[in-house]
């Protein structure tokens, strides 16, 4: 089992061979808009404009078109894409496309966001910008989100964003450590405490560190 499989199990895309996944005490037996997955490979539909991509998440609710459009516009504005709603994904950069995917996830009004290495396919500068934006969105009081489960290989990114870190390693993957991060926000990567946490995480992931 790997990290992406774990997210798919949590999201109800795959069924666990043992155990179960519960959200607010209720079992997740199939994918639900209450827990929306944001993929590592950026998923936008090339035949739809940015706003149509976002409105896709509202189709099952059968809202009036104007209302759905208004909600999608708000979501696009939240991710910094106001004014770009009529562009097709091919007319956008990778970072903009991933913002569209995040807006689509947010407009579904989920309780949990499942993020599978959402910045992995972006260059470092774009990833950093989007990371900051996601940070602002997630910690915005108006966001109905209760939680975000993000998988990442980027330890600095993990330290910047997470309150609780589960370190998984090996094949099949197992949890090798749980780290509760008690640093105040916003976190500064130059803070010596930040570095200490990073060292701990590296140690869990290297053979030498694990054998200590």
């Amino acid at each position, binding site marked *: 089992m790997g990290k992406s499989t774990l997210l798919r199990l949590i999201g*109800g*895309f795959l069924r666990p061979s043992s155990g179960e996944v519960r959200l607010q005490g209720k*079992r997740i037996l199939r994918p639900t808009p*209450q827990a929306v997955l944001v993929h590592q490979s950026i*998923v936008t539909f090339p035949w*739809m404009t940015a706003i149509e991509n976002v409105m*896709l998440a509202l*189709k099952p609710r059968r809202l009036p078109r104007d209302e759905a459009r208004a909600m999608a516009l708000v979501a696009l504005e939240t991710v910094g894409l106001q004014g770009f709603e009529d562009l097709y994904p*091919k007319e956008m950069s990778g970072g903009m496309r991933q913002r569209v995917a995040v807006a689509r996830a947010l407009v579904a009004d989920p309780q949990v966001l499942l993020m599978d290495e959402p910045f992995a396919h972006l260059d470092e500068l774009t990833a950093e910008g989007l990371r900051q934006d996601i940070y602002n969105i997630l910690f915005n009081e108006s966001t109905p989100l209760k939680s975000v489960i993000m998988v990442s290989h980027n330890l600095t990114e993990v330290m910047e964003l997470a309150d609780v870190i589960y370190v998984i390693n090996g094949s099949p993957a197992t949890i090798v450590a749980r780290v509760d991060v008690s640093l105040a926000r916003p976190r500064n990567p130059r803070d010596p405490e930040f570095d200490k946490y990073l060292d701990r995480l590296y140690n869990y992931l290297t053979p030498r560190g694990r054998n200590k």
Partner: protein
Amino acid sequence: MIPLLLMFLAVLATAGRVLGLMLASVVVGWFLSYQAIRSKAFENIYIAAIEVFESVPVISFFPIVLALFVLGVGGPIGVELAADFLVFTAVVWNIWIGEYQAFKTVPREMLEVAQNFRFGLLNRLRYIYIPFSVPRISANLFPSVSDGFFYITVSEVFAVGIHTYRTFGVGTLLDSYIAQSLWTYVVETFIVLGLVIAVVIIGLREFSKRAVAKYTLDTDMPIVRRGRLNLRESIRFTAMSSVNPLNRLAKYNMDRRKRRGTEQDKYYEEPRQKNYGYAWAGAGILIVGLILYGSYRIVTSVSLAEWGTLLRMTPTLLLDLLYDYARVAIITVIAFIFSLFVGYYFAMNSRAEAIGVPAIQGFSAYPVPTYFPFIFLAAVPFLNSIFGQYSSEVFVLFLGFISTFYYVFYSFWMGVKAMPSEYLEIMENLNLGFFQKMRMIIMPSTFPYLISGISSTINSAWGGLMIGEFWPNIAGGRSLEVSHGLMKVIDVATNNGNLAVAAWASLIFGIVVAIYSLVFTRRMMDLARKKYVAEEGIYSA
């Protein structure tokens, strides 16, 4: 009626049949493909059936069509249905397999988005599957239009024994003008037909351009891209589906569906869906029953003495088939050589390509049977003086070539265009000669495309033979006829109203061609996939 108006109406009727039936194929194909990716049992039957029907040339359906529609339904509707059915069988397989392959290769991530937001059947089709299939459909429209026009013009007028059946269209109109020696009208009809075909081709090219611009992916999502995938590649998809995560997901969903109703705390459970399994099973049983009943009726309607005659004829029919295979081989070799030179030149020379490719597309869509009699009339004295009694063979081979070279040409041209640019740079860097390039780099790297094109050329060559091997009163009071050939046997038997012989020869033909396709073509495709996929060479490097 004003002759020009009549010509336009006739051409529009023919074009309407072709395009309308293609549209019908596309729409029906979406639902069948969706069912195929949802049900393994349906998928196995569906793909196997398409594979056999695609490898059996459309023309071998002719006696069945005659029996079913013309003699069974009868009247103008029967004749119209016969023409429509022939065109339907000419255009449908390419389109259906293209849609199936598109549906089967929708990236898992896209499907997960649909699952996440709980899309139902219609929303999945509308927002994901159908848009995703558009580029694949557009790639299959050109060959389908060519095939459709080719067969519609010969199926609008046909003779069975003393009866001649007609349905309104350009084929019927031309036949009538030629019979009355109204040559000016014939030429004008050709021009009108050319104009309409040009409009259709331009429209399709525009549609293809838009489809590629709007509906193809260019993201990081994993997706199989191999140009025009051949039907035989379906095996790979079936193999893939048995191990890929999507299938696991599907299995999980199937499993979950069975367990539904036993768990009480399904807060995030979907509402119960209707189970269409029984309806599909019922429809399948009905179709199998009808086929069995039809077969029983046909077998019992032929007397024992007739069966004896048919069985005694079989060795001769097989020998006739051998003659035809030799013709198909010659046509294919010539088409192959033509494609290597012209296809490569077009792929490397953008100016020549801008003119040449649309010209060849237009030419191939223009139905050969309409203008071939004039070529025959012009060339017969010359060819008779050179080839003597074998001039008929030359005409038949030429007819076969011009009606079928397009497939191998187009596939090879696409293959060269799809070659990684690194290969072209290496060829230039090493200063390789033309034949060195061909032998060592271009032919191996375009091998999957070549096999795909060659198999289509072989399948379509039979249509040319069917028309050319026996063509009474082709032009100038002359007839075109070869000495041996199974297509001639079927033609003559149909013309004489001897449907038992025509159907028996067609059946033998269908069986042999299907076996050939499954044994030979599929192996070549497997070899192409294992050894000659150029994109992977670059990727792994």
